[in-house]
């Protein structure tokens, strides 16, 4: 089934004008095609200046996260047949826009760096790899599937108003290493996330869970972090 869709795209072209504007494009798409296909068609046949990020186009790289009809999602994972005929596309909210749908993700990745996103284990390494049992892996399986597209952090109302907040994505990363049985830096990691801008700023709003393209229950992980922090706090591990 082939249908016409109207793409309303928020444009920002800093070389032409500092103002943003809305452009409309009518695109013919079949019901197997995705928003990303529409964007590619527009760029190739209608307006070559339209700028957006894309890479794998199969929901693995997380480059094409954008706000589609008022909700953050991956353009490559959103079928046009599930949307109304008018499709409104904006860049991810609350991050500085570079051009059209491309945002500056520096702040997002800085938050990620703050939670020490690497394995810390001072023990001498064994002959081969550090072994992890399937049960232990199961504990962190959900959090490992994160592709860091930025949908969750930019959907969080706390992050919109408080740019110091670590955000759901970084906290999920903290969970991934805190609950990894091979990692030994529990104290250090808890210290990084229990400050004023860490887990206590999460108010269980569930916006991040609504948008996650990998369907990770991020709030569940942050709630587990809170319980861990309280438990360790009572044992005197944390201030």
């Amino acid at each position: 089934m082939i249908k016409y869709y109207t793409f309303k795209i928020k444009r920002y072209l800093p070389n032409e004008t500092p103002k943003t504007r809305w452009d409309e494009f009518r695109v013919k798409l079949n019901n197997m095609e995705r928003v990303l296909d529409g964007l590619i068609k527009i760029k190739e046949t209608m307006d070559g200046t339209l700028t957006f990020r894309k890479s794998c186009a199969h929901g693995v790289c997380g480059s094409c996260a954008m706000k589609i009809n008022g909700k953050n999602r991956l353009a490559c994972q959103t079928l046009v047949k599930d949307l109304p005929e008018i499709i409104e596309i904006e860049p991810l909210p609350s991050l500085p826009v570079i051009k059209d749908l491309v945002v500056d993700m520096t702040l997002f990745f800085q938050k990620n760096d703050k939670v020490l996103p690497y394995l810390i284990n001072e023990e001498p390494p064994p002959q081969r790899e550090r072994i992890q049992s399937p049960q232990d892996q199961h504990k962190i399986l959900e959090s490992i599937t994160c592709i860091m597209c930025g949908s969750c952090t930019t959907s969080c109302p706390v992050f919109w108003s408080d740019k110091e907040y670590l955000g759901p994505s970084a906290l999920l990363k903290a969970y991934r290493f805190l609950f990894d049985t091979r990692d030994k830096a529990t104290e250090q990691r808890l210290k990084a996330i229990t400050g004023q801008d860490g887990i206590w700023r999460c108010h269980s709003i569930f916006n991040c869970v609504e948008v996650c393209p990998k369907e990770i229950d991020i709030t569940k992980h942050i709630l587990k972090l809170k319980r861990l922090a309280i438990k360790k706090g009572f044992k005197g591990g944390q201030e």
Partner: protein
Amino acid sequence: MFSWLLHRITGVILLFGLMYHFILMHFLGHDNYSYEAVMQRLVDPSWKIFNIVFLLSALFHGFYGINGLITEYVKGNSMKNFLKIFIFILPLILAFFGIKIVIF
């Protein structure tokens, strides 16, 4: 961290306190909040303790919430610090007034 936990605990205290407060003062008729009835209750030490716990819980709970709002919405560090000091002192003053009326 412990202030966060205390926020939850005072929340639960307030839940039961408010239940009692509403039933007594608003649902069970006029006699409970006449001047004489209130003063008679205030003489009882268990009521004094209830009132003080209720008062301090409400103040802590309310102002911890406002503290979070300031962290999230106020831009600029000097303004933030000023407001944080202000909402630290204000509940202390209110607690003083509240405890004064309960005890004396």
